[in-house]
């Protein structure tokens, strides 16, 4: 259980950085409140709680990519990872210790978004549990992307690439409105990526569709998550074997 010590450190390293907490948790919450208040003045369907809450939650997961990649890139650059690689740890220890700490972050982000969603009038029934399953799958994909970026990029490059992921989710995920109503390149690019599928699925579930109504979307999400997760694991594994 040596990975637990390291995972504990990684959790502290993330939570003790106020900037990451503000960007990853407080900002999405503020955006959710902002957009829903716009929705009140102009009764657009896009800005209802059921539509906005899953969108903003997935948007906030973009920061999981940023944080996990940043932690790894920083530890590589400061040679802290070198110190750890000298220790008798296994590849699995590293992978668990650098991925698991971001699940509580995802839980916190989701909890904050859905708590606000509840105040704003999200449908409150068992469908929420199903929506959460769909969303957490995407969270795992985002952490996987973070491992890929963090294994190969420097801190500065991660800042750029991580922002690109967050912007991509925002533009091509249909976070703020249904991509089908936007159309064009946003629709075609968006549905080639997993984020729009996840947001669509969670929205449909909240509006009463069971898992049966979103099977296509679910395959997209699971497929992409597997790819990103495995690529993340292999990138990091490769990095732990090729120290410098």
């Amino acid at each position: 259980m040596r990975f637990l010590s390291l995972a504990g450190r990684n959790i502290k390293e993330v939570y003790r950085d106020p900037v990451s907490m503000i960007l990853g948790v407080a900002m999405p919450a503020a955006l959710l409140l902002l957009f829903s208040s716009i929705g009140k003045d102009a009764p657009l369907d896009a800005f209802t709680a059921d539509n906005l809450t899953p969108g903003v939650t997935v948007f906030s997961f973009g920061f999981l990519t940023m944080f996990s990649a940043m932690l790894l890139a920083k530890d590589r650059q400061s040679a802290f990872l070198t110190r750890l690689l000298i220790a008798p740890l296994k590849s699995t220890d590293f992978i668990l210790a650098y991925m698991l700490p971001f699940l509580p972050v995802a839980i916190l982000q989701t909890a904050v978004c859905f708590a606000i969603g509840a105040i704003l009038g999200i449908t409150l029934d068992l469908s929420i549990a199903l929506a959460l399953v769909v969303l957490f799958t995407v969270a795992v994909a985002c952490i996987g992307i973070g491992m890929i970026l963090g294994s190969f990029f420097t801190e500065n490059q991660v800042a750029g690439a991580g922002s690109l992921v967050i912007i991509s989710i925002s533009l091509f995920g249909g976070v703020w409105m249904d991509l089908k109503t936007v159309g064009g390149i946003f629709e075609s690019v968006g549905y080639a990526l997993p984020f729009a599928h996840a947001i669509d699925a969670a929205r449909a579930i909240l509006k009463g569709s069971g898992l049966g109504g979103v099977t296509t979307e679910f395959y997209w999400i699971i497929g992409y998550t597997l790819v990103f997760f495995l690529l993340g694991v292999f990138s990091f594994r490769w990095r732990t074997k090729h120290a410098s």
Partner: protein
Amino acid sequence: MKQNIGRNNKGPENENDYAVQTFGLTKKYGERIAVNAVNLSIKKGELFSLLGPNGAGKTTAIKMLSCLIKPTAGTAAIMGHDIKRNPAAVKQIINVSPQETAIAGHLSTWENLLLMGGVYGLSKEETKKRAQELIELVGLTGRAREQVRKFSGGMQRRLSIAMALISDPQVLFLDEPTLGLDPQARKALWKQIEKLKGQKTILLTTHYLEEADALADRVAIINEGKIVALGTPSELKKDIYGMQTMVIKAQNFTAEIIEDLKKAYPQTKKAENGIEIRAKELVFDDIVDYLRGQGVKIQWLSMKEPSLDDVFLSLTGKETADEVS
């Protein structure tokens, strides 16, 4: 075969007396040879220094010895465990304070030490006990609960060494432990390292000659991946460092005088307002008498103790790279 011969030998050449032995240890990066067929034997309990300029191959050597990278050729044994065949055993008994400080900035001193204890599989109680002792040893008592990213360079280095000591390694590698520190912090850190002498086998790399001189039982000078000299600091001083330099300031030195001196002392050269003579043994009276006889009016004369930098220069043809402060 080789090992058997070593074992049968009685006396100081016994294999079991060595904590670290390298056998033609080599690392190539493409065409560049970072470490070139290095053979070293470090005795148990010894503080051994690998001294060399930047890029000499010191860090690469430590990376191989700590099983971070694989040698291109040759191998090494740490306490009898081969680094290629049994890296798991090696990892359990060594620890490294890397050249970069490599500490967790958002954690406190205490938390950094507990983390490393956990990573090495120590029990909570044992880690806490050792952490307490180490915090005192490296003089961080009173700062144990602060996040370490705000610490001075010297304090971070001390923590880095404590983190390497938490696993109670039999062999400790210190890669340029005083790099980037001001002279005061450097001297303070030397005191801490001196306390470890005799208790652990330590391989310390440095590009500061004074550091190797002050701390090491034995020194190997490494240049472009090769060991170019090896011995105790005093041996090295006698054999290699033992150059004396006489600086003479005077007018009317002629080319003939310099040529004449060169016959006796080949390393005679023109210097600012005079000449410089370097040799292992300078016969002071002869030189002065000769110069007087030639009608040279000596204005100023001094004997320079060989600076360690001079030695390095003569040995490797390179100045030691000093920190730009």
